């Protein structure tokens, strides 16, 4: 039965839903798209929800609503990450994309954020399913928000169709899991699985495999990635930033709960599948990224490679005797990835507004005209590549340590080789910015970037540096988040 304590623990999500509804109401009452008011409401809501979450940072794992959600530090940590991602997306869009209705945009972003926040804590198949949908459906809509561009509509249709297909596969896998165990709670599933499984049983493999394939679609892992370059390319760039980070980390969090809680007794059965998916993503993502001339598509393939790195972390967790270490390296990696990827897309957005082009060649000689975005883009590219002392370096380092600790040296080698290949396409952007002259006839005058865009870029850049330099500090928080969690 519902109690006051349970409701109190759910306050952050309630606040975000209420703010989304308030934004919609205000836009109806004021008749006019008052963008700054909407933004202020959104930020205030995110701050309040974040402050409420922080109060429960040291909470013992508390299952609420009959175990539908578990509030632990893992949940709190990820809630904060998702709120940050949402705020960055709203700030990036507020004075851009004049033709879209911003109130609806903000509300849709916030609804998706609620889905992610719930997904971070969901410990029941039903809750997980609803949260995944609440996370995904608004993102399909966001992709189509600039539907006066044909490419945007096309991207949304592709994303929606494949996303719905993935949902069906996921639901099918969940149905198998329920059919085998008669349980929907992750803990209860873990308790009843050993009684059913004696060997690598084909039913368990099928249930796990279908759930994994469904999630592989959502996080865009090779070979389930085909939608993602088109979706990232066609979506408005702030939305590309949002969907390359939020749903990806959300789905990874769900996978951590599934592998760490429900399927722990049988996780050895899916090891091989995880290895193959991770290695294929790292190799495929990096090789395809090299061939791109459109920077949004390049970042899409790069984020496929990063999904592979994160999946390698989850694969390490399935090896017996590794403990929880791989999980907290993943949390650290999630924060690092969020900062550098949002930053990179923000700079791409600036260039798109400036030159109407998302080709990498548009970055030629950027350092000569405007040094600020060039320097910031360099930070993001080097961080994505994994240069010390930036966030991306420590993210990869921690995952490699976890892989070596799990006796998966070969996967660590794949990861390193993949990173070496990625140097080509990340550094190409830097070379274009600093060592090439602007194209003939291009506007060479320095240009002003709007304050809101600049603040997102600066915050992400400083964040990428700080998370790298103070990596121990964040790593310890991430470690405690996992150690205090319920798996």
């Amino acid at each position, binding site marked *: 039965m519902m109690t006051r304590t349970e409701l109190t623990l759910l306050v952050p999500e309630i606040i975000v839903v209420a703010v989304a509804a308030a934004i919609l109401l205000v836009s109806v009452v004021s008749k006019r*798209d008052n963008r700054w008011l909407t933004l202020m409401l959104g930020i205030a809501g995110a701050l309040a929800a974040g402050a409420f979450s922080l109060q429960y940072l040291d909470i013992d794992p508390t299952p609420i609503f009959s175990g*539908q959600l578990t509030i632990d530090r893992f949940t709190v940590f990820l809630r904060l990450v998702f709120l940050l991602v949402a705020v960055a997306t709203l700030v990036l869009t507020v004075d851009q*994309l004049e033709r879209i209705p911003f109130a609806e945009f903000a509300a849709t972003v916030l609804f998706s954020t609620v889905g992610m926040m719930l997904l971070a804590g969901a410990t029941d198949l039903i809750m997980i399913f609803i949260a995944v949908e*609440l996370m995904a459906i608004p993102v399909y809509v966001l992709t189509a928000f600039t539907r006066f561009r044909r*490419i945007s509509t096309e991207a949304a249709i592709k994303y929606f169709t494949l996303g719905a297909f993935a949902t069906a596969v996921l639901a099918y896998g969940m149905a198998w899991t329920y059919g085998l165990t008669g349980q929907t709670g992750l803990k209860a599933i873990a308790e009843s699985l050993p009684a059913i499984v004696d060997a690598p049983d084909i039913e368990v493999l099928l249930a796990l495999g279908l759930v994994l394939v469904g999630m592989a679609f959502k996080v865009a892992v090779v070979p389930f990635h085909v939608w993602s370059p088109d979706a990232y390319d066609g979506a408005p760039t702030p939305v590309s930033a949002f969907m390359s980070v939020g749903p990806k980390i959300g789905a990874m969090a769900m996978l951590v709960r599934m592998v760490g809680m429900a399927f722990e007794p049988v996780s050895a059965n899916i090891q091989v599948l995880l290895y193959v998916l991770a290695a294929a993503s790292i190799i495929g993502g990096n090789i395809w990224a090299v061939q791109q001339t459109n920077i949004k598509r390049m970042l899409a393939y790069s984020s496929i490679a990063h999904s592979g790195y994160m999946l390698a972390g989850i694969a390490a967790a399935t090896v017996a005797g590794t403990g929880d270490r791989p999980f907290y390296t993943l949390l650290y990696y999630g924060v690092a990835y969020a900062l550098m990827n949002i930053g990179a897309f923000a700079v791409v957005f600036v260039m798109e507004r400036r*030159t109407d082009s998302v080709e990498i060649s548009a970055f030629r000689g950027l350092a000569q005209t405007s040094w600020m975005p060039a320097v910031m883009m360099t930070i993001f590219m080097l961080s994505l590549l994994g240069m010390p002392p930036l966030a991306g370096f420590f993210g990869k380092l921690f995952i490699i340590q976890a892989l070596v600790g799990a006796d998966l040296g070969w996967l660590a080698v794949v990861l390193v080789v993949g990173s070496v290949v990625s140097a080509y396409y990340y550094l190409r952007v830097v070379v274009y910015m600093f060592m090439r002259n602007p194209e003939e006839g291009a506007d060479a005058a320095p240009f002003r970037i709007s304050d809101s865009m600049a603040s997102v870029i600066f915050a992400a850049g400083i964040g990428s540096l700080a998370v790298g330099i103070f990596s121990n500090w964040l790593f310890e928080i991430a470690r405690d988040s996992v150690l205090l969690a319920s798996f």
Partner: protein
Amino acid sequence: MTDQIVAFTYLSIVASVAGLATILVRSPVHSALSLVVVVFHVAGMFVLLGNGFLAAVQVIVYAGAIVVLFLFTMMLLDLRRHETERTVHRRQIWLAIPIAVLLFAEVAWIAISKPEISENLKGAFPPQTIDELGGSAQALATVMFTDYLLPFEVASVLLLAAAIGAMVLARNPDEESLASPPDMIEDAAGTDGSSDQPEGELSETPATHG
């Protein structure tokens, strides 16, 4: 018992034939009407299984709402033009048939060779528990409003988000430019004059570099 077998035989034969008709008939309207027949007969099977509530939901939601929605969509989109769709989707058949066979084999395999799985499917609500609670509707309500209260509530947020998304996507673009601030109307008028379909990248502001 024999009554039940007779009823089940009738329901399953008609449901199967109507199901085949749904995918084989040429006209989409006939296809949708066959689907109504399928839905009604599946509802009858739920009654046979002693679950009147699911039968009612099946009729109200599927026959009442979803098929009517299908028919409305067909009417509004005038789908008669697309009656030759099957020739367009010829290649999918080679993928669809093996998958259908595979799924059927899977269900048959579970039903025949793995009785212990079907036992598990009864879960926390075997028939006697449902009887104690006073029927399937009560049992469903008890679960939905206690253990699964949160997903039930979150589903309403999901529906709200989807409704808003549908409205944003379905709204007439001209209304959007009217709803935006006055200075934007001028811009929109400017681009509307130059081209009917502004498909270029972010072409809401006229490109005036250099």
